């Protein structure tokens, strides 16, 4: 099977190629993070730290 493996050898991609593809992914990631907020879909009640911070910032809430 070694000969078959040799047949499939290709050079690694240029660094810029990987960077460009990562940029495409990051755009999708960023869009989702913006849509859901930095804490994602967690609710305030499910995130004690954020709930406490919100109470400090909005004491009347």
């Amino acid at each position, binding site marked *: *099977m*070694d*000969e*078959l*493996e*040799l*047949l*499939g*050898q*290709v*050079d*690694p*991609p*240029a660094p810029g*190629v*990987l960077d*460009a*593809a*990562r*940029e*495409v*992914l*990051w755009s*999708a*990631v960023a869009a*989702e*993070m913006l849509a*859901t907020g930095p*804490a*994602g*879909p*967690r609710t305030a009640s499910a995130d004690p730290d954020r709930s406490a911070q919100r109470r400090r910032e909005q004491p009347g809430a």
Partner: protein
Amino acid sequence: MNRPAETDGTLIERSARGRPDAFVEVILRHEVAVHGFLARRAGRQVADDLLGEVWTRAFAGRAGFDPAHADARPWLYGIARNVLRAHWRASRGGGRRPGEEVTDPWDEVIDRLDSAARAKPLISAVRALPAEERDVLLLVAWEQLTPAQAATVLGIPQGTARSRLHRARTALRPVLAGPGPDRKGS
């Protein structure tokens, strides 16, 4: 003390539960391998062009990944395969009949292989294989997958992948075990 590395499954699960950025770590692990998968089948230029499409499709579909799988490569190769098939379908101008199977354009693949001139008998034997056997064989030989992982890529039962691999290896054995003192029959 270093923590053990998280599995792909753990990272993808986390990315689907409010931390989408965790998905990027999975891609960093496998980007060279997935580019190689594309380049072996469609050439470097097409691989360069399609890699980002693979990532966005994988990211969009990550909720469907089974986090019990530690290695995401079979899943990513399956997505890359679908992206390639869509590319081939589009590049041929939709000249196929509805439902007609799109397979690797093997003649074009061969033309791109640098080592083609040195291995004509082997190439002829691989070309003569049925497409479904060739798919399994090359996933194992080129992508270093197990037959079970190849089955995941192709969406077929593991037993089917094993039997196809066995038939392909049997067909290639005369070529791989041909004349020459250093030939191996594996």
